[in-house]
C-alpha cells in the first residue's frame, strides 16, 4: 500500500477517502467489487455474440457451398445440380457432363475459392498493417510488379506458351516489387505504416509507367488487349496441375495469420499503443508484410489482379463480426471465397459464351453492395 505521506482529506465535495481504499462511491452504485448485475450480464452477452458468430460462419459456409454447386452447374452448358453431384462422386462413369464438371469447372471454381479467400485475408491483414481501411493487397506495388513481369514476358515472347510463361513472369515481377518496397520502407531502420504506403504507392506508379512503356513500344497491338485482360484478372486459366500452388500456399499462410491474430489486433491501436503493449512493431510489420506479399504474388500470378475483393470483403466482414482478427479472418476468408465464386459465375454467364473479366464484375457488383452496407450501417448510428 501507498505510504500516507500526504494528508488526505476529501478532494472536492466527495466524502473523505482513506488511502488504500477505493475512491468514495457515487450514490446509487454499490461500493462492493464488481456488482453482481454486471457479472451476470457479461457471460450472457458473450454467449449471444458467440452464437451470432456461429450463425455468421454457418450462413457463409452454406452460401459458399451453394455458390460452388451453382458454379459447377451453370455456364454455357447447363448441368442439373443432381448430375453435378453424380459427376463429383468417385467412380462416376465418364460422360460429357463429368468432363465439363471435373476438368473445366471444378478447377475454376476451386481457384475462385482460393484466390477469393486469399485476397480477402491479405486485404484484412494489410489494412491492419498500415492501419488504414483503404489499403488492399495491391496497394503495396504487388499487382503492378506482377503486371510488369507478365507484360515483359508477353512482349518478349519468352516461353513456348504465354499461358505458362505469364504467371511465372508475374510472380517474378511481384517478388521484385516486394523486395523494392521492403527495401525502401525499411531504410532508416524502422518500418512505419506511412513509410510502407509511400514506398508501395511510389513503386506502383513507377512499375505501371514501365508496363505502359513496354506495351507502347511493342510492335504487336494485340499485346494491349491481352495485357488488359490479364491485368483485370480472371479464373479462365485454371488448371488442375497448377492449382496445388495457391492451395499449398494458403494452407500454410491462413493458419499462420490466424495464430497472429493477437498482435494484428495490437497494430490497430497505433505504433505507440502496440509498442507499450509489448509488440516489436517494426519487426512484426516487416515479417507480416513479406508473408502477405508472397501470398498475394502467388494469387496474382494464378488469376491476374482481381480487384476490389481485398478491399471490400474485409470491410463487410468487420461490419458483421467486429475488428478483432481471431473472429475476422475466418469470416473474411469465407466471404472472399463466396464473393469471387459468385462474381466468376456471373462473369461467364451474363454475356455467355463471352467471358467478362471477373475484376470488372467484382467492382460492378461489389461497389453498390458495399455502399448499401455502409448506408444501412450508418442508419443504425454506428461509426464506420
Amino acid at each position, binding site marked *: 500500500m501507498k505510504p500516507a505521506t500526504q494528508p488526505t482529506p476529501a*478532494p472536492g465535495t466527495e466524502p473523505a477517502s482513506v488511502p488504500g481504499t477505493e475512491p468514495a462511491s457515487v450514490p446509487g452504485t454499490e461500493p462492493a467489487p464488481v456488482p453482481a448485475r454486471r457479472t451476470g450480464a457479461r457471460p450472457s452477452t458473450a454467449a449471444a455474440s458467440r452464437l451470432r458468430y456461429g450463425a455468421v460462419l454457418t450462413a457463409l459456409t452454406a452460401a459458399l457451398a451453394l455458390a460452388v454447386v451453382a458454379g459447377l452447374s451453370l455456364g454455357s452448358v447447363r448441368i442439373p445440380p443432381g448430375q453435378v453431384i453424380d459427376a463429383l462422386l468417385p467412380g462416376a462413369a465418364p460422360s460429357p457432363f463429368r468432363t465439363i464438371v471435373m476438368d473445366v469447372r471444378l478447377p475454376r471454381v476451386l481457384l475462385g475459392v482460393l484466390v477469393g479467400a486469399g485476397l480477402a485475408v491479405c486485404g484484412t491483414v494489410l489494412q491492419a498493417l498500415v492501419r488504414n481501411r483503404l489499403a488492399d493487397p495491391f496497394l503495396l506495388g504487388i499487382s503492378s510488379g506482377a503486371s510488369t513481369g507478365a507484360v515483359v514476358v508477353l512482349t518478349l515472347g519468352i516461353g513456348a506458351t504465354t499461358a505458362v510463361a505469364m504467371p511465372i513472369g508475374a510472380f517474378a515481377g511481384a517478388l521484385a516489387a516486394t523486395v523494392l518496397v521492403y527495401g525502401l520502407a525499411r531504410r532508416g531502420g524502422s518500418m512505419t505504416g506511412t513509410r510502407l504506403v509511400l514506398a508501395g504507392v511510389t513503386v506502383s506508379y513507377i512499375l505501371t509507367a514501365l508496363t505502359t512503356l513496354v506495351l507502347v513500344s511493342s510492335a504487336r497491338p494485340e499485346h494491349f488487349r491481352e495485357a488488359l485482360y490479364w491485368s483485370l484478372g480472371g479464373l479462365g486459366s485454371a488448371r488442375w496441375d497448377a492449382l496445388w500452388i495457391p492451395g499449398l500456399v494458403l494452407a500454410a499462410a491462413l493458419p499462420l495469420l490466424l495464430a497472429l491474430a493477437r498482435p494484428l489486433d495490437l497494430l*490497430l491501436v497505433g505504433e505507440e499503443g502496440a509498442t507499450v503493449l509489448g509488440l516489436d512493431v517494426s519487426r512484426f510489420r516487416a515479417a507480416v508484410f513479406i508473408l502477405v506479399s508472397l501470398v498475394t504474388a502467388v494469387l496474382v500470378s494464378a488469376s491476374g489482379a482481381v480487384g476490389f475483393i481485398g478491399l471490400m470483403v474485409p470491410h463487410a466482414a468487420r461490419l458483421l463480426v467486429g475488428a478483432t482478427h481471431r473472429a475476422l479472418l475466418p469470416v473474411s476468408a469465407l466471404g472472399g471465397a463466396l464473393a469471387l465464386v459468385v462474381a466468376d459465375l456471373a462473369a461467364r454467364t451474363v454475356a455467355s459464351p463471352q467471358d467478362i473479366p471477373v475484376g470488372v464484375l467484382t467492382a460492378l457488383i461489389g461497389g453498390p453492395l458495399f455502399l448499401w452496407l455502409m448506408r444501412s450501417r450508418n442508419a443504425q448510428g454506428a461509426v464506420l
Partner: protein
Amino acid sequence: MTASLTLTGITYETDGRTLLHGIALDARPGETVGLVGPNGSGKTTLLRCVYGTLRPSAGSIHLDGDELTALGPKARARRVASVPQDSPGEFELTVREIVAMGRAPHKRFWEQDTANDASVVDDALHRLRITDLADRAFPSLSGGERQRALVARALVQRPALLVLDEPTNHLDIRYQLEILGLIRTLGTTSLLALHDLNLAAYYCDRIHVLKAGRLVASGTPHEVLTPELLAEVYRVKAEIAVHPTTGAPTITYLPPA
C-alpha cells in the same frame, strides 16, 4: 506489484537537438510521482524513454535491479504500463476489446483469453466506471470516456510501474479527482506527467520539475512548489498557501501586473 524506478543521466538527442539533459530522478516503491513543467519542457519525451517508445541516447533506467532499456518490448510491457498520447484509431474495436489488449504482454501470440483474463478486465472496467460502455465502439466515445478506457487497459496489464502522460486530459473535474485517487490506491509505483499543479500538489508524494529538458527541482510538493520556482519555470506570479482542509500547497495564480 510495485517496484522502484531510478533514472540516471538520461539524455535524449534527435536531429542534432538535445531534448533531455542528463535527467536523474527516482520513484520509490508505491510512490505517486509527478512530472511537471511548461509545454515543451520534455515531459513526454522523458516518459517515452521510460515506457520504451524512445531509446535514450545516454543514461540508464532501472526498475528494481533491471535495466529497462535492455528488456524486449514484451518483457517491458509486463512490468510497465502506460497511456501514450496517440489514441487508438478508427477501427471499430469495442471498449472491452481495447481494455482486454492489456492482457497481451502476458500471453503467447496464439493463446486465447481465459476466464481469469476476463475477470481482470471486468474489474478494471468497474474501477473506472465504464462497465456500461463495454460493448460500445471505442471511436464513438467522448474524450473522457476514451481516457478512462485507456487507463483501464493499463491496469489490466497488472504492471509494477504505471507511466501516464496527462492522465487527466479531457476529463471533467470529477473524473480527474477519481482517476488520480484511484492511482494512489493501487499501490503501484506511478510516474505521471501533470499540467495542473494543484492536482499534482494534492495527489503526488513527490514532484520533479522539468524546464527546457533539465531537471530543476525535486522534492515533496511543499518543498518544490514555491512562488520563486513558479516565477522561474513558468514565468507566472503566484501565491501559495497551505490549504486548511487538504493540507496541500494550493496555488493561486495572479494576473501579470
